[in-house]
């Protein structure tokens, strides 16, 4: 049985191998994605973001425990930053998820950003497809935690959760504007701390004072303690409520369509740019052009304006 057939049957080794091929951009990886695409869309994607030290990984560990009690099969994609100097990375989120390390119903995949900005790895959507195809019910994506600009998660997840902790100094201010706006659910972790209730109150006030969201969803706030394993049943209820809201209002479909369109545009732009650059390098005009622009013999704006391409899509000329 080939790798793809095994993957579709839920074989973990095949799935891991497939994810690696996709992650490293092998042509075989693209082949796998083409073949599993018809099977995608079944899993529910939960995005988890927030500042470092908020306890995202520990919180996910407990969340998974409760999801497993409900019989759900869970995938976790844990993303850590790549060193801009060496191109290497230390992926250490697994350390916080030890409780499930031998559970066959949980699959943990660590990814490095490899220079990609926005909080995710470039291949995150593709890895989600593979996890979906292997039969997982819920996929949790844990972003790189800086909490300022890591908002790409909202384009990838069905429900986006922003995690914070009490006593981060400015509390709410510590969560920067962009991240505040993307949350469907706020979670105050380390809820056993005395200032936790204050943080919950401040978040609720902030939500009440903000303009209502375009889709009509009012973000919920939950307090959890990963240490004491408290608050997770309520959080899961909240996630299900958001899911029901999306389905009832038709947003579930429309957001997923947006997600697909976003993915398509990224791949399209990549392909066109790379094709053009390869051709230029092949013909030996790339470096020459860069030099001419640098010596101000021509300007880059005119160069780009002058580009014209003949393209065809699915065999038809455009």
């Amino acid at each position, binding site marked *: 049985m080939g790798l*793809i057939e095994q993957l579709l049957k839920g074989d*973990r080794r095949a799935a*891991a191998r497939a994810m*690696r091929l996709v992650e490293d951009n092998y042509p075989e990886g693209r082949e796998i994605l083409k073949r599993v695409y018809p099977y995608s869309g079944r899993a529910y994607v939960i995005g988890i973001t927030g500042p470092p030290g908020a306890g995202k990984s520990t919180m996910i560990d407990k969340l998974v425990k409760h999801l497993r009690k409900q019989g759900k099969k869970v995938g976790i994609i844990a993303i850590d930053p790549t060193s801009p100097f060496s191109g*290497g990375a230390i*992926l250490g989120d*697994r350390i916080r998820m030890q409780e499930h*390390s*031998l559970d066959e119903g949980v699959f943990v995949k660590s990814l*490095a950003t490899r220079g990609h900005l926005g909080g995710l790895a470039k291949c995150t959507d593709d890895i989600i497809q593979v996890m979906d195809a292997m039969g997982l019910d819920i996929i949790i994506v844990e972003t790189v935690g800086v909490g300022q600009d890591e908002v790409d998660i909202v384009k990838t997840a069905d429900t986006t959760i922003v995690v914070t902790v009490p006593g981060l100094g400015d509390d709410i201010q510590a969560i920067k504007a962009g991240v505040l706006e993307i949350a469907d659910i706020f979670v105050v972790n380390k809820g056993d701390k005395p200032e936790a209730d204050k943080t919950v109150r401040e978040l609720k006030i902030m939500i009440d004072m903000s303009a209502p969201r375009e889709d009509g969803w009012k973000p919920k706030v939950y307090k959890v303690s990963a240490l004491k394993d408290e608050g997770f049943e309520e959080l899961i209820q909240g996630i299900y409520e958001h899911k029901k809201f999306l389905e009832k209002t038709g947003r579930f479909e429309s957001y997923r369509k947006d997600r697909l369109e976003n993915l398509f545009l990224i791949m399209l732009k990549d392909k066109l740019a790379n094709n053009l650059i390869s051709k230029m390098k092949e013909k030996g005009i790339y470096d020459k052009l860069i030099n001419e622009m640098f010596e101000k013999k021509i300007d880059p704006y005119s160069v780009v304006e002058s580009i014209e391409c003949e393209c065809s899509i699915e065999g038809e000329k455009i």
Partner: protein
Amino acid sequence: MSQERKIKILIAKPGLDGHDRGAKVVARALRDAGFEVIYTGLHQSIDQIVQAALEEDVDAIGISILSGAHMYVFPTLMQKLKEAGLDDVVVFGGGIIPLDDIPKLKEVGVKEIFLPGTPLEEIIEWVKNNVKPRPVKL
């Protein structure tokens, strides 16, 4: 789209051994050399190490043992990797391991052991030369 083949290495601390500075130093050196390192943390069972290696589809596993349990850990690990279909993963190790035991470990399939005092450059060079991307088969 260009290929972005990175070598992935699992650095693991099996058993009761509670000192991980060495493992962390090696992990950081590997990162600085451009590898992607998955660090498991302390007190891993062999089963946990094998599961992590499987899920992350690593190319190599580096085991750090200071507790003297190497003659149990390595052969058991090699056996379980084989059972999990991961026998093409390169296994190397370091820590407190007597010179006399190294040939026995190599006999069960451990590719190299790095004793205390080994310069990090030597480990990095060895990894670059001995850990390659595994062949693809759909």
